[in-house]
């Protein structure tokens, strides 16, 4: 395999890697945190790298096969970038609306089992103030 082809493949690999890094954080976007910028830079570098490599590959290629491969790599990179845009937008708009809470309304009843197997409910917590936090969970 020629050097430009390797370069192009490495670029595609980088784009895929950046995509992988993005997925678990998709619901957080479009507000970008400090940790997102390195991923974006890797993604942009990967795209640029891949396109440069494939253009070079197309220039060097003598046969039709190489040109087809170059075109496919370009399309693949752009496809991944397009898919990322779709995913990011799709998830960022799905966060449900907040529930309505009136000042000093009674807490809704709830009951669950905690990590130690203890039953926790609004009744078991009654008598002391508490904070009830809903989260995405651990992952």
């Amino acid at each position, binding site marked *: 395999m020629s050097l430009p082809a390797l370069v192009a493949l490495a670029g595609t690999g980088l784009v895929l890697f950046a995509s992988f890094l993005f997925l678990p954080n998709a619901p957080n976007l479009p507000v970008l945190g400090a940790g997102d910028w390195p991923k974006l830079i890797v993604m942009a570098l990967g795209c640029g790298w891949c396109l440069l490599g494939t253009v070079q590959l197309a220039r060097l290629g003598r046969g039709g096969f190489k040109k087809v491969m170059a075109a496919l790599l370009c399309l693949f990179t752009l496809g991944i970038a397009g898919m990322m845009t779709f995913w990011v937008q799709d998830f960022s708009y799905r966060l449900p609306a907040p529930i309505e809470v009136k000042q000093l309304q009674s807490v809704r009843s709830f009951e669950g089992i905690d990590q130690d197997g203890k039953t*926790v409910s609004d009744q078991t917590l009654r008598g002391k*103030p508490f904070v009830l936090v809903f989260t995405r969970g651990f992952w």
Partner: protein
Amino acid sequence: MQAVTVCGDKPEDAKNGAEKSGVDFHVIGDSELKIINAWGLRHEEAVPGKTTARPAAFFVTAEGKIAHSVQPDNYRKRMDAEAFRAGLRKAMGK
């Protein structure tokens, strides 16, 4: 002040997560979404294949009244320490 967190994790995942993080508050893995649905805080497919709770915090008084609530519209907008303390003060009637 007592603290309870509810998420859509399976109970065993919540247990493992709580142990790894070393938290000393109640962690409820509500994978059947009983509490989350009852509160109307279901976030369908928050990540592919996983439905869990939208982010929300409710500061409740000793009498069981909601004194303050925070429901950010983005996972990244987490409460800072001052906002948390303000909620606690309201729940404690200070």
